[in-house]
Structure formats: C-alpha cells, structure tokens
C-alpha cells in the first residue's frame, strides 16, 4: 500500500505544524479519500476481520476444535453458542473467529508471491520485447486458457490439500493475469521521458525496471491486488467447499459450509454464518478496489 496509505500516514505524522512542500498537492486527494464512502466501508470491513484474526484468542469463547456435548441435543444458536454448534458440535462462532486467521495469512502471502512472479514475467516481457516477450506472452496465454477453478482443482488434487500447496496454486493461477497487466503497463511506461533519461545515464535494465517503471505502475497494481484478494479468498473458500481446502480439523470457512450443506434442511444456520463471513471479507476488498479506482478516475 504505497499510494493513499502513505498519504494518510504522512499527513498524520505531520500535524498542522509548518506547511511542508508537497503537502498542498496531497491535500485534495487525502480529503477525497476521507469522503469516499465506498472506500471507508471497505477498509472498515477489512480492518474488522484483521482485528478478529489478531484478537482471536480474546474474542472466541472456546477453542476452534472443542466438541461440546452439552449442545448434542440442541445445536441451535443460544446464549452459550451464539451462532449455534456445527455437525460435530463445535462452537460455530469460535470456529469463524479462528478461521479468519488462515484466510488472512494464506491469501495475502500467496498473492504477494504471485505478484513477484507476475511482475518479473510481465516486466521483462514488456521491457525487453522480442523473443522474451513472445515466450512470456505464450506462457501467459496457455495458463490463462485454463478455467481458474479447473486449474485449482487439478493442481490441488495432484499436489494434495495443504496451505503451502494452496499458495503454489494461487501463484500459478494468478501470476499470468498479473503478468499480462504489468506487461501492458511497462510497454506504456517505457516510452516516457524519465525512462529515456535513465537510459541516457546508461542505467542497467534491471535498475530501470525496478526504480523507474515499477513505482509508476503501482496505482493499477494496487487496485488489481485488492480485486485479486477478493477472488483469491473466494477461490480458497471454493476449494474448502469442494473438500480441497485446509485439512480438517482446522477451521476453514469454506470447509465449514461443506460440512453443513447436507444438513441444510434442518440446520441452515450452520452453512449461512460461515458463508456470511466469506462474503463480508471479500466485499471489503472489492469495495476498496472500487473506491481506489474511483479516486484514480477522479469520480
């Protein structure tokens, strides 16, 4: 988060004092940032789930895997179990709270790696052109020809379900799209004057890509990252739902919906609460992506 986040931080770090150069230019954008309702709601949703994940031991009334025999006959929501108990009579509220941790660890970590790979591929393709571009673009085309879920299912089914393999799968599924985006941005940016100037100074290609081009591509990349966070969290949920997520008994939101679906006729809440958890977290990232895009377009 370089763009708006830094603006907020720097504005907060320099309270009123004497006006600094550059602050005047940043002000309107900062004000817009505060006025954007969409962005505000999105950030609030993400902050809520991050807080829940960090404070899980304080918030959750029970451990995620404790089975409550007291809820055997009556698993419905009650004062003891706010969201009721699941088919194995574990507290659903506690499992949702603890379940925020794996999602918020795996999804950003996986997407960060996917961005590193995607940026490396896309930037060298766009910057060097020629056969490098041809090769990278071909690889990207081939990987993008797989429907995403199909690639996820085949990958996880052959690698085995684990957090690390989910990270590997996210890298393989997401980096081609990131690569294509970065390639386009690089081709556009490399014609700019500051790149020409850097070439005049005889800087290395590596330096130009990393120091001149990458920082100037950060806007679209941040929006893309937020959108992809949404899709990746959905994908992790889908994998859990399909039985290819984190191995049990770890609390996994998608897996919770999976376990509850056969009992939907009697206990619909068992599936609905974890679904709502996924929906609100994904919505947070999607709203932030929308809000940042509106700022860029000056809407």
């Amino acid at each position: 988060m370089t763009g708006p986040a830094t603006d907020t931080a720097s504005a907060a770090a320099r309270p009123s004092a004497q006006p600094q150069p550059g602050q005047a230019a940043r002000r309107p954008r900062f004000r817009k940032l505060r006025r954007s309702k969409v962005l505000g709601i999105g950030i609030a949703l993400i902050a809520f789930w991050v807080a829940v994940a960090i404070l899980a031991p304080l918030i959750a009334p029970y451990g995620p895997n404790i089975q409550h025999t007291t809820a055997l006959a009556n698993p419905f929501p009650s004062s003891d179990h706010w969201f009721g108990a699941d088919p194995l009579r574990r507290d659903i509220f506690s499992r949702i709270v603890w379940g925020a941790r794996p999602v918020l660890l795996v999804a950003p970590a996986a997407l960060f790696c996917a961005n590193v790979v995607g940026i490396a591929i896309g930037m060298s393709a766009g910057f060097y052109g020629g056969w490098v571009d041809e090769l990278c673009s071909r690889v990207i085309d081939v990987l993008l020809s797989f429907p995403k879920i199909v690639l996820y299912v085949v990958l996880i089914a052959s690698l085995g379900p684990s957090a690390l393999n989910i990270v590997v799968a996210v890298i393989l599924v997401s980096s081609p799209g990131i690569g294509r985006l970065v390639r386009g941005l690089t081709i556009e940016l490399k014609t700019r004057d500051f790149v020409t100037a850097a070439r005049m100074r005889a800087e290395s290609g590596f330096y130009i890509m990393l120091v001149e081009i990458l920082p100037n591509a950060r806007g679209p990349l941040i929006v893309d990252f937020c959108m992809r966070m949404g899709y990746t969290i959905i994908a992790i949920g889908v994998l859990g739902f399909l039985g290819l997520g984190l191995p049990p008994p770890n609390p996994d939101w998608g897996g919770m919906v999976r376990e509850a679906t056969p009992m939907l006729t009697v206990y619909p809440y068992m599936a609905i609460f974890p679904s709502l958890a996924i929906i609100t977290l994904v919505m947070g990232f999607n709203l932030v992506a929308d809000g940042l895009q509106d700022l860029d377009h000056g809407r």
Partner: protein
Amino acid sequence: MTRFILRRLASALFTMVAASLIVFVLVEASPGNVARKTLGPFASDEQVQILYERLQLNDSLIVRYGRWLGIITGLRADPLQNPSLGLKFHDRRGDRYVGNFGFSTMMKIPVADVIWQRLANSAALAGLAFLVIVPLAIAIGILAGLNAGRPLDRAITTLSTVFASIPEFASAVLLMSLFAVWLGWLPGTSPLQAGGFWPIYSQFVLPVTVLTLYVTAYVARFVRASMIEVMATPYVRTLMSGVVVTEVVFAYPGLGRLLLETALFGDIALIEAATLIAVLIAVATQLAGDIGYMLLNPRIRFA
C-alpha cells in the same frame, strides 16, 4: 484476413498442445503412480510392477506424452486394451479412434462412454444460464451507461460489487435455504431424474440463478475496471468456473462435478479428459470471439 484467421488457428493449436502437456505432466509425472492408479488399491505390488513394464512407463516423460497424444488423436492403439495384459478393458469403439481418453478406473468403463453425456448436461446448464445472462448484462450496461454518474449508475455498481463478493456456493446455500427449505417452492438438488416429485425444468431454476448472479456481477466489475474488452470470452470462462461449483452444490450430473469426483478419486484418465475438454472449450470460444470481433470491427481487420 485469411492470414489473420490462420495465425489465430495456429496460436490456438499451440495453446492446446501446451495445455495438454501441462495437464499430462500434472497428472502423470510420477510413472509408478500411473500403474498403481490404473489397477486400483487392491492390486498387488507385483501386478503394478508388471503393468509398469508392459506400458513402458520407464520411458522419459516426453516420450510418454507423445504416446498419450497419439492415443487421444487415434493414431496409436490403446495398450490397455491389449488382451495380453489381461485387464479385460473393452471398448466397443475399438482401440484406435479420435478422442480415445482410455478407461476410467473409478467407473470401470471407457471415458468416452461417460464424458460426452456429462458434457451435454453441462452445456445445457451453461446454455440456459447464458440465455439469461447476456440480455441481462446488456440491459444493465445500457441502463448504467444512460445514467452515468447518477444514482442509478452508482446503485448498479454497488450491487454488482456486492454480488461479485458472494461465492457461488454461498449464494447457492442462501437461495436453497430460502426457496427449497423455508418456502419449499423449488427442489434443492438437480439430479435431472424424471419421475420424482419435481419436474426436470424446476431443477434448473436455482442453478441457473446462482450462475447468473455471479457471472453477471463478475463481468460487470471487470468491464467497469476496463481491464478487458466487452466480449463473450470472459463470460464463458467465468461461467465455466461457476458451473463446476454449481454442479457440485446441486448434485447436477455434469462435467464439472465429474471433474471434482475424479480428481478426489485419482482417476487419471477422466481427469485428463475433463480438463482437456474444458481447455478446448475455452480456447475455441477465444478463437471464435477473436474472429467474430475481427469480422465486426474493420479497424482490426485491416490493421
């Protein structure tokens, strides 16, 4: 123009070959696994060893890939049908035909016997969803465009963000709870079997609704982000991903559910067949989309 089409055809062919290599490597990289999976968990190690030698699984990955490609395209006879192996695998189409994906170890029948019926079912589901999605998306696009910047446009944007945030399995669970469990208006599963309480057409309502909600919202968001052209291709690929999940939720007998079942079972022949067909559809729509776009847009045609 012919050159453009030929170039696109060549690139689609290349993509298919490369994708098939990826699928093959993912599924059959370890040769010991191939013999074991073909014979199932109850075969002895000696039997697995014999099949390993007869199928020449010792050869390099590329050689085995070439052989596999030969069997699928009907250029080579499927060695599994060789009577000397004693596997009693029999295919009424013979051992050499186009689209010979081998035998399903899960179902004990040729892959070709099961896969096309499942594909037809999936196509019916996706086709119905498409018939709803396309007019809906066009109507929404026009409404948003005519009211750009006004409350209606913003409401559409917000709604598409909200719906794009709901995974298919979550909307399926919510809709099922409401319409199947609580109101009892619709069936909660769609096995496509006639003669039950629910007529066949009613079994399509919830799956098509789930697909429509997600795909329309997803594509609307993408179009807004102007990352892609407004074309048919993104719809199809999103729809294909959505179909897998929807089929699993509603127990719909389609290709997507088959893919998941075979992936969980480890049925290598069926995994390869289902994945390759999915990629083929994606590549074919991309090709059709590119050529159609060119025919409609003269600027590209003469560029």
